[in-house]
């Protein structure tokens, strides 16, 4: 994706790097979340990440990750010849992928709830 100068400067700043690491850490979980209720193809996953989680990612980031999750047995895929005039590769969670997604979602929820309590005074201060 093309990025403007200020955005690039933000990514290179300490807080920007931290945000990148944070996003990196939850990207797998976000993909599991996209696929939880059904199968999607690559571009749909990209769009869903952007619209539902505000995660703007390049295709060059998501496709190799999907390939790796498939190699790990967490996703499975199938080619579908649709009306689009070209085949689409649909991904869906395997049983192992669903188990992993549930574990990660629980951990994430517990972690963020704990952190929220700790950070509430910080946010109160910021709101003043």
């Amino acid at each position: 994706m093309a990025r403007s100068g200020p955005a690039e400067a933000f990514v290179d700043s300490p807080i920007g790097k931290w945000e990148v690491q944070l996003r990196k850490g939850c990207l797998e979980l976000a993909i599991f979340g996209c696929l939880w209720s059904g199968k999607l193809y690559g571009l749909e996953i990209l769009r869903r990440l952007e619209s539902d989680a505000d995660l703007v990612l390049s295709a060059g980031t998501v496709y190799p990750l999907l390939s790796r999750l498939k190699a790990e047995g967490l996703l499975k895929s199938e080619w579908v010849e649709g009306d689009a005039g070209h085949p689409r590769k649909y991904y869906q969670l395997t049983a192992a992928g669903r188990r992993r997604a549930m574990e990660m979602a629980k951990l994430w929820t517990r972690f963020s709830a704990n952190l929220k309590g700790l950070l509430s005074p910080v946010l109160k201060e910021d709101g003043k």
Partner: protein
Amino acid sequence: MIDSTGNAPKIEKYLARVRVALRGLPEREIDDILRELRSYVDEFAGKEVPGVEAALRSLGDPLELARTYRSENQMVRAQCSGSPLVILQGLRHAGGGTLERVTTTALFVLGYFGLGILWAAALEKILVPSRGGLWYIPGNLWSTTLVVGGNPPAAAVELLGWWIVPIAGLAGLAVKYFTDRIAQWWIGRYRRSTSIPRSVN
């Protein structure tokens, strides 16, 4: 569709570069990756105004994209493979410091060297029974020598006899097991995730 816009050569050139850079992965896997990339470009170009150019830009540099695929896939394969070559490739792509990587790779090579010695000793005993085996000079246990491709020391007597064959065979398997496990543990620990979102809203 794409052909009518004159973008086909751009796509073909891009995919050809990815294919070359993916060399080493199984051919079926490469075909599947390229088919998916082509499908993405077709889909994207059909819906977005900037079309093919933007789709290729979103995929990024073809060599970098192929490197990401290779490193992600090779490390996953290395973690569940028994092939030393696949594990070595996984070690090459894993993250961590250079010193750690070199040390682990050296230990891995050393482990397989030990495996080679043990199995060669077992084979030598089978092929040249009078020469192969574990030998020592009576009264001097420090002189114990595993003979591989040479002659036992003068006045030496054999220690294990034919037991050297199953013992060396099993010891070799144990060495391979632990060597592989250590390398795979290291790969898992330091797997360099390339899935770093670069875009920030």
